């Protein structure tokens, strides 16, 4: 005992406790390390193809056309002074806002109509109404282009039957703008419909019954029960669609390629034209970056809406 090899009990104890603490920490650490490793592919993907390109875009937008000199904000100034680009800003906003409003209103009406019919029939009607949204947009836009075709237009044939003269659908600025919006509404409405239908179904039936007993009519039920209950979903869907519509490329590119007289160009198609087709990469990058503030603004509110909705669901 006195040879120094044995250690008093109370000296051992803390050492054992420490050892145990370590293994426990190691457990917790291993769990979070595994967690991090499982997320690593996602992190790498986003870092390489989203975050890095985003910063690279800022760098690119500050170079000259040959990418040999740094020009600061010169590209942005140049774009803002150009009449075509002013048209792009106007058309992008017009296109996005008008489309989203129309989609939201028609989608809301459709959702209500669907909600009125018995559940067992909803599936087939929903299937039919979702067809525009199922076909790849680039392909269905081709059909629209063909229907707007100047010499063979199927719409003009119908108009002719009623004695109305041919309409140059894609040949005149404002008509062409209307056409791009029409195609977008046709394509995007079904998405609004299913979102709103899901939201409608989530409103408890008792609320309507309570409102009816309190003496509310149909319109009052809509304003005092349905809309407040759906407010968050409406906001999320509208803002989300605003982002997608604002950044749309397919419709304008295929239908008009920006014409006539650059009147239907949106940011994406214009960036494609100057950046890829004309080879002015920095100017194209600058053009794309103009979308960023508006997207960030909408994204902020979408995120807030989603967080709120999640809290509501949790409550």
């Amino acid at each position, binding site marked *: 005992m006195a040879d120094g090899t044995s250690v008093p009990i109370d000296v051992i104890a803390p050492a054992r406790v420490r050892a145990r603490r370590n293994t426990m920490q190691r457990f917790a650490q291993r*769990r*979070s390390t*595994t*967690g*991090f490793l*499982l*997320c690593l*592919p*996602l992190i790498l*993907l*986003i870092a390489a*193809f*989203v975050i890095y*390109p*985003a910063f*690279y875009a800022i760098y*690119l937008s500050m170079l000259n056309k040959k990418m040999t000199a740094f020009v600061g904000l010169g590209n942005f100034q140049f774009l803002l002074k150009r009449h075509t680009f002013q048209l792009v800003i106007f058309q992008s906003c017009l296109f996005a806002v008008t489309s989203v409003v129309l989609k939201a209103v028609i989608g809301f009406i*459709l959702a209500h109509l*669907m909600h*009125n*019919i018995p559940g067992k029939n909803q*599936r087939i*009607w929903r*299937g039919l*109404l*979702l*067809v*525009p949204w*199922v*076909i*790849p*947009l680039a*392909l*269905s836009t*081709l*059909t629209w282009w063909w*229907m707007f075709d100047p010499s*063979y237009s199927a719409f003009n044939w*119908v108009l002719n039957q009623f004695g109305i003269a041919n309409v140059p659908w894609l040949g005149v600025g404002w008509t062409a703008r209307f056409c791009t919006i029409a195609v977008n509404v*046709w394509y995007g*409405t*079904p998405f609004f419909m299913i*979102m709103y239908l*899901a*939201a409608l179904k*989530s409103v408890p039936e008792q609320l309507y019954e309570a409102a009816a007993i309190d003496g509310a009519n149909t319109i009052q039920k809509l304003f005092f029960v349905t809309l407040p209950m759906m407010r968050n*979903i409406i906001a*999320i869907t509208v803002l989300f669609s605003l982002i997608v519509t604002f*950044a749309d*490329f*397919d419709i304008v590119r295929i239908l008009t390629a920006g014409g006539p007289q650059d009147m239907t160009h949106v940011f*994406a198609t214009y*960036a*494609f034209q100057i*950046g*890829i087709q004309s080879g002015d990469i920095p100017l*194209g990058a600058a053009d*794309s970056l103009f979308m960023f503030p508006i997207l960030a603004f909408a*994204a902020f509110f979408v*995120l807030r809406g989603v967080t709120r909705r999640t809290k509501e669901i949790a409550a």
Partner: protein
Amino acid sequence: MSTTVAERRIAVAAQRKHSLHRSRMWALWGSYIALSVFVVMFLVPPFYTLMTSLKSSAEISAQTGSPWLVRHPTLENFWYLITYPNFQRYYLNSIIVTILTVVVSMVISVLAAFSLSRMGFWGSQTLSTGVFLTYLVPPSLLFIPLFQIIGQIGLINNFWCLVLLYPTLAVPFCTWIMIGYFSSIPKELDEAALIDGAGYLQMLWKIFIPVAMPGIIAATIFAFTVSWGAFLYPLAYLYTSNQMVLTVGIISDLIRGDVFQWGKIMAACLLASLPPIVIYAFLMDYYVAGLTAGATKG
């Protein structure tokens, strides 16, 4: 006296009941009629695609009678496309790119969603938010810097670049869907599995994935949709027909200068839309449920 009052009351009640019933019937039939109008409007373009695809070039250019009807239906456009090597190539490329995109996206997002919904680590909360924000980044925002980056790694005009880029469009939302589905699995199920002796990967493979199958299906369909229908990236990065996928292939191959072979274009559109239509026809319910999960839970 009292009997007449009672009778009148009953009559009024019956009438009221009748009118209530009648107004309901009106609402129902009104809805059906309005829906029919919308369905007709929505289905005009697909219908016209089908009609045109069944016409010969001669019939299209003849311009006699209604363009909405086909007089001499023929499958020659379809036959032409099926035997056309370029079209076969586009189709094959689309299939390869899509399958790889779906597999890569699903592996990445299922692993990440499992981790984010169950194993908190430093910064995992921020990462979840970041993933959602990435979903809101449209392809048209970054295609120009990506053009440079793809050029630097030598994948311009090579459809493999799409396999690298499409996951950035699919993964964020797939992860988001899967986080939702995984989070709805009761914690006791993991604990039961832990006690039964499962490790984390066994838990994911044997419990989480089978239980969250509806979510997996929804996310897979989303990845498929993104990959099959994307237009901007292939248009910007591919330019020879041996590398092209369907969306750009149809447009650049069948439209030569001013010559529009509309019958063939429409037939190609139909053939290219076939896979999504078939998938949606069978799995629509899962997809809609996945998309609207946030809207219905409340």
